[in-house]
């Protein structure tokens, strides 16, 4: 008899087993959808401790997206003060009390997470979609981190200090990306690009567990591709909350039409047990209430006085696309104008070894194409990236994948000149 047959799939967890759970917070909603307004009607955060439930912020019309402070004493969340109002970022003690508004924007702000040094990161609605911002908890001016079109939502803050976020993938659907907390070095977490990845969360092993379609999958440090998780048949919705190694709380349902319930998932045993609760409505976004080790602080090396961003590509030929040796002649860069139309920034020569070095305008979308020696497009990147003011970025190649470490050689372009080709569009 295998472990799977022992599983109490979809059985109610006996109430006495609450003792094995730490306190946790989750979102309870009448309706939930993955895109657009995720909670089109009411949603509220619920704290569960020893089987007892308590609304976290009953004075708010809606609350969701909980994160717990590193000392385990505060809850950061997105909340609406009243129906029809914008989502804002709020904070409240775990022990109870009055919620404090962290933001007061006219636009929505959602998916907040604590950062080291008493800062928070969240996603704020802009004309081009949700963008990530960092704000001191004590207040001040927010620092916008993302500058590409589309909705970017915070998924997690990784132990190494990078922000994990979900955003649009050029081929459709969403994917998981990382960026440092100063907005530098955005990149896809992996370049195998799944169907529709989102709601990622890092577990104690360091793996990233995320939702892909209706399933859960993971990234692990050793592999350049996602790893499927062998789980009982169910519809899953991330993120997961790990309360012991290999023991997760996760939202799941028996089928695509059913509402989501919170379940305990024993990953090794592939055992899914539904937690007691009402049958109607959606229960999701669990997060364990406990002190935890803060992620590492990212020491920003930005030098804003430098103005633009400098981008050095070591070898354009290092790519998932195969370019014959000597075939690449130039790289062409675009940005997006205010009206959303593409605007050419310029071209730069690509050296024989595939290297180029350019300066691009900061804090705006950048896209590049690789051209052959007659100026025809060999490959056009469909995704947008950005560079921060004063950022110095180096890439191994062109869409090389995070598994590719650089070859140790002086790029020919730096032997020609240590000054970047200015592609700042006349600015």
């Amino acid at each position: 008899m295998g472990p799977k047959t022992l599983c109490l799939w979809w059985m109610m967890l006996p109430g006495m087993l609450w003792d094995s759970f730490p306190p946790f917070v989750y979102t309870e909603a009448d309706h939930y959808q993955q895109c657009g307004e995720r909670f089109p009607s009411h949603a509220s955060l619920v704290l569960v401790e020893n089987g007892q439930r308590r609304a976290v912020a009953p004075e708010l019309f809606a609350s969701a997206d909980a994160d717990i402070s590193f000392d385990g004493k505060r809850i950061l969340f997105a909340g609406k003060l009243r129906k029809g109002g914008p989502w804002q970022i709020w904070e409240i003690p775990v022990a109870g009390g009055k919620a404090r508004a962290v933001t007061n924007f006219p636009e929505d702000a959602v998916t907040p997470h604590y950062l080291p040094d008493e800062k928070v990161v969240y996603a704020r609605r802009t004309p081009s979609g949700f963008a990530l911002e960092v704000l001191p908890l004590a207040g001040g001016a927010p620092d916008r981190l993302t500058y590409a079109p589309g909705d970017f939502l915070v998924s997690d803050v990784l132990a190494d200090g990078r922000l994990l976020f979900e955003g649009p993938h050029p081929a459709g659907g969403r994917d998981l990306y990382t960026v440092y907390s100063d907005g530098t070095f955005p990149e896809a977490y992996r370049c195998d690009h799944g169907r529709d990845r989102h709601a990622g969360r890092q577990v104690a092993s360091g793996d990233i567990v995320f939702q892909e379609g209706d399933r859960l999958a993971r990234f692990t440090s050793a592999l350049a591709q996602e790893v499927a998780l062998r789980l009982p048949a169910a519809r899953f919705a991330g993120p997961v909350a790990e309360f012991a190694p290999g023991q997760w709380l996760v939202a799941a349902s028996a089928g695509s039409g059913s509402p989501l319930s919170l379940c305990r998932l024993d990953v090794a045993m592939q055992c899914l047990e539904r937690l007691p609760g009402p049958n109607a409505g959606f229960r999701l976004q669990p997060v364990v209430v406990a002190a935890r080790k803060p992620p590492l602080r990212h020491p920003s090396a930005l030098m804003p006085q430098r103005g633009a961003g400098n981008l050095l590509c070591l070898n354009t030929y290092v790519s998932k696309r195969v370019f014959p040796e000597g075939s690449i002649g130039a790289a062409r860069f675009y940005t997006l104008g205010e009206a959303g139309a593409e605007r050419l920034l310029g071209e730069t020569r690509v050296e024989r070894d595939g290297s180029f070095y350019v300066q691009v305008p900061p804090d705006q979308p950048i896209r590049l194409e690789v051209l052959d020696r007659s100026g025809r497009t060999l490959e056009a990147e469909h995704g947008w990236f950005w560079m921060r003011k004063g950022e110095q970025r180096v890439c191994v190649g062109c869409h090389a994948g995070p598994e590719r470490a650089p070859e140790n050689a002086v790029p020919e372009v730096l032997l020609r000149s240590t000054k970047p080709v200015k592609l700042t569009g006349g600015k």
Partner: protein
Amino acid sequence: MSMWGVWLAMAAAQALSPAQYPSPVELAVSPDGARLYIVCQGTDELVVADTRANSVARRLKVGRVPKGIALGPGAARVYVSNSWDDTVSEIDAASLAVLRTLHTGFEPTGVITDRAGAFLYTANRISNDISVIDLASGKEVKRLAAGRGASYLTLSPEGRRVYCTHIYPNPGRYRTPPQSEITEIDTATQRVIERQRVVNAAGMFHAAFSADGRLGLIAQIRPKNLIPLAHVAHGWVFGNSLAVFGQGIDGVVQVPIDELERYFAMPFGVAVDSARRLAYVSSSGSDVVTVLDLNRLLAAIGTTEHRALANDLSAAARYVAARIPVGRNPKALALSPDGTRLYVANRLDDNISVIDTSSRTVTATIGLGGPRELTPERRGERLFFTAKYGFQGHFGCASCHIEATIDGLEWDLEPDGFGIDIVDNRSLEQVGETAPFKWNGGNPDLETECGPRTEKFFYRSQSYSPEELADLVRYIKSIPLRPNRYRLPNGELTPAQERGKAIFERTRKKDGTPIAEPLQCPVCHSGKYYTNRQLTDVGSGKPTDRSPLIDVPHLTNVSLTAPYLHDGSAQTLEEIWTVFNPRDTHGVTNDLAKDGLNDLIEYLKTL
């Protein structure tokens, strides 16, 4: 109580001086598996552990800073290299009495005997050569030229070859990929028969062979010193890896042991099981022993383009079988003869991990004594040798400052821009009193140099607390100064050194013309450490330097710290003057002939 027991009790009662930590670095197991010999470089000891009891049985004083061990034929003799004494202690294994002290080249590290016990070889780190000692006479009969930083020796299983690996790359053309060397010696003739160049390997450490001799593995690091250090992720600064060679393998193939987000820094020790099924590698900066499946490793080598393999952070998943956490700063590895136990020398924990190779877990720890309290210097030493502060555990101080020295490389650090202000890696011996720091003198003290600067531009990750930083600086200031081999014991100078001193201190050219004071050597290279700690333009600036002003470096053991000049463009001391001083801006040297420069170098070697 037996005599053995009495001796054990006495050994246990023997008090070590307060700041002496055993710091085990090298291991050897007796053929019957009953004894584990442990070289403790911190206490100048050979420690013998009883492997059945997993406890220390005996301790024996050897020479200063022992760094290597070999067992002679039948394990009747034990040889320990004493790196600061330039000797090898020949020890009778039964009585543990030192029988002879054999003289070697400078800083003997690795030591090995041939199968017959006729010749003993030592890899001499700072004389860059290999001593061949006739064990019958106890005399050095040959000195074989090796590569730079000759350090570790391994005898091939059939006994026909000795392989020497080097912790520094050989001198090479400026801003070209570093090359380390594997020097191969024929034991029948005691001659070098091959020098394998390993491109883009800078530090190569222990080697091990499979029992059939068909496969060789060397722990090594692949630096990325030629590209701007603008970030750390994706293996940007080092590739912690293995060099693999042998039958059916074309040349030397470099394979990573890192992953995409986890690094296994500063690989050092290697062991291969007798069945050629598994290999073990210690990562001394990550406190881990990695277990590799050799069949899968060979399959990866056979099916992947080798340059791509060397830079593929997902490759290790194809051949890494396990990662075993061990103690701090794991150095040498030794397998028991039956292969059931793997011993790991945890240098900065002063103990030995005993790994059960079937369960792949640490089942026992052999403590080696030493002070229970950690001094600030010892705490700082732990910080210096760990990689945990680098982003994702990628590298640490000791990745570049190998064994607290240098790496022989020049680096393109990012804060200045790309391809700008290339810098040579400076020596840390006596560096503490030579503020300011950096080649542009930009950091007023070591706290700034090692704290915010390192965190922001090297580690790219949160690093030391203020208390840790204070400990680290204490350690750096305490890095022991290795003995200068070029000074005569009586303190006098040789005639050549005297002539060189006169050149160093001269105020007039050979034709009697006065030398302007700023161009007299002792003006800038003044004081106890031969630096006036000022910024000076000596005309060595390059078009890619932002400023021609260079912090005057100290000259402690300067002959060991090549390459030279602020950017490492001079491969030798002589090139400083013959290539980079055409207008006599870096002292007046163009009136000197070759013999004059030779004399000057002879004097500089004594500093």
